[in-house]
């Protein structure tokens, strides 16, 4: 069919629709042809069958759906003695106790603050860096924007006051958190 330039003006809707449909069919056919060429090339170049899964692997990764075992075919609750290395202190910790360890290790949370402050109040021989960390925690606990602002060292009496203030604020904190939008 010869191609000739023609104006689209003055053509009625049915004619326009049939032209549009023709163009659409040509495009679909070209796309199908493209796919055929891809397959042809892959077969000839030798990589078409490369991703065929071997029977062994298929069996290996098959989902198991039986009572008493998980999808991997393993019995429940056998993962008891897992360990991991704490990124903070590099000690080897039992996986199931990692979270409480990390809390103390990072000096976070109510419990660790209380313990730490008691330690500070009772002795003056605390490691400098340790008390710095707790200071930051006291003040950063109620701070949304985690930043690297430096905090000045506070005096002992201030620490006790801050600790009580922190406990009070924390009791108010819970309902506020769940309603906030991301910053």
């Amino acid at each position, binding site marked *: 069919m010869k191609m000739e330039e023609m104006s689209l003006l003055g053509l009625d809707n049915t004619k326009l629709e049939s032209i549009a449909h023709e163009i659409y069919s040509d495009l679909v056919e070209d796309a199908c042809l493209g796919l055929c060429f891809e397959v042809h090339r892959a077969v000839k170049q*030798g990589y078409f069958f490369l991703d065929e899964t071997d029977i062994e692997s298929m069996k290996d*990764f098959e989902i198991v759906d039986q009572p008493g075992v998980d999808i991997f075919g393993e019995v429940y609750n056998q993962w008891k003695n897992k360990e991991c290395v704490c990124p903070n202190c590099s000690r080897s910790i039992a996986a199931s106790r990692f979270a409480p360890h990390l809390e103390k290790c990072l000096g976070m949370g*109510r419990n660790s603050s209380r313990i730490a402050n008691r330690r500070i109040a009772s002795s003056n021989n605390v490691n400098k860096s340790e008390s710095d960390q707790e200071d930051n925690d006291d003040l950063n606990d109620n701070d949304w924007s985690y930043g690297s602002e430096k905090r000045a060292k506070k005096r002992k009496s201030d620490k006790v006051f801050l600790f009580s203030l922190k406990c009070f604020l924390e009791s108010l904190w819970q309902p506020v958190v769940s309603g906030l939008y991301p910053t």
Partner: protein
Amino acid sequence: SNRSAARMKDRPLLRKGFYAAAGRGAPLDVLSVMSPAGCSHVSGFKVDNWKQNLRVIYQCFVWSGTAETRRRKAKSCICHMCGAHLSRLHSCLYCVYFGCFTKKHIHEHAKNKRHNLAIDLLYGGIYCFVCQDYIYDKDMEQIAKEEQRKFFFFFFLFSPLSPGVGEKYSTWEPTKRELELLRHNPKRRKITTNCTIGLRGLINLGNTCFMNCIVQALTHTPLLRDFFLSDRHKCEMQSNSCLVCEMSQLFQEFYSGHRYPHIPFRLLHLVWTHARHLAGYEQQDAHEFLIAALDVLHRHCDDNGKKANNPNHCNCIIDQIFTGGLQSDVTCQVCHGVSTTIDPFWDISLDLPGSSTPFWPLSPGSDGSVVNGESHQSGSTTLTDCLRRFTRPEHLGSSAKIKCGGCHSYQESTKQLTMKKLPIVACFHLKRFEHSAKLRRKITTYVSFPLELDMTPFMASSKESRMNGQYQQPLDTLNNDNKYSLFAVVNHQGTLESGHYTSFIRQHKDQWFKCDDAIITKASIKDVLDSEGYLLFYHKQFLEYE
């Protein structure tokens, strides 16, 4: 076919090569002797200045990069016999002759002139009339690749549609060496429908089930999975503490094929380090963790200062997937002027019946309209009920007058929330944990939620029809923009003080799995829909380009 068998018989090397290509373990040395994809008949063509001639043919008649060359191609490339412009037009490689393939006009020319090679003008494939097949000669392929690259470079350079995209995405093709290795090693890890790859248990690190559930939901968010598995995160953070990198690593773990559970201790460390307000190890809220994790991921996604300068124009993957726009309209009761604000959101928190704030009626003079195929009768509350309540016009009492810009005084008003922009992944948070000043308790009211959800009635654009009280769910199945599918559910069992989180996630379209820390088991859709529901994750069914 018989013809191919006859051909193969005459060419023993070609036959061996073909079988090798088909993966049937022919001796590998055949591949190094001759490429089975090419043919010997091109030798007549590869003389003198053939490379340049071939380039010209590609540039003028196959890959026309500019509007001018395209016009020239359209005008000059017609079959010399019948004048056809399509019909798989081919150009002879030896002379200037165009002929269509479907009507065999190019074949006639080849026979008459003994010009045995032609090129397909649509895709640039070289056809050999002696072999009666398309062939792939290494040298000619090299030229084709170069010309194609040039074409795409210019095409995209000058295209208003995709500025800055310099190169077309090309599919992977193994090199000879890679082919060899892959043949020597036939074991494959392929994701099929009945495959455990993509699923993995997570060890509980001490009441960290809240984190495990969120990890399961995120690793089964299709768009997020695709983003990380195609290695789209380019880290710009100097230190080793990028949460997005850790997320990427997590996907690698989930798709590793390992069957033993993963220990997400590094993830916990990173999240707690970057979101210290999640202080404390006591039972934490999965919803809180989700928001904190999304926040840190969002911050780490592009850490070269862009975020700080322009927080509203971030286009990181987290924003692209999770951020929606919530419209708040406050209408002055006196002058009826409307003040509108739009705020970004990552989740929608919904009140439930049974809490201290009354749930019913949903709006004054509640209509009995049918939404999402359900009308409210006595029976369980539905997610749709919760959404209708969330988007109801609410009369703010006389104690909460707002300053009206139109009246220049404080007036009573109504406020209404609707969705302005829907996120790709919509997360609904059923507010089951009540923390008022007097009491802390868990609301266990059953709320039924659907597998598929249409958000159209809750859009800002649907407000008009709803206000008239005549809103009926249109049976407009052509508008698919607002249709969502459930893909993850996080559940909480137990009390406020001590409880356990588990999740259901969807894999391979219609398979559901229950994730209970390290134990992953198959679940039925009924199990999922009957569960209590705390966090519900829905994914848009249809994605469109912006």
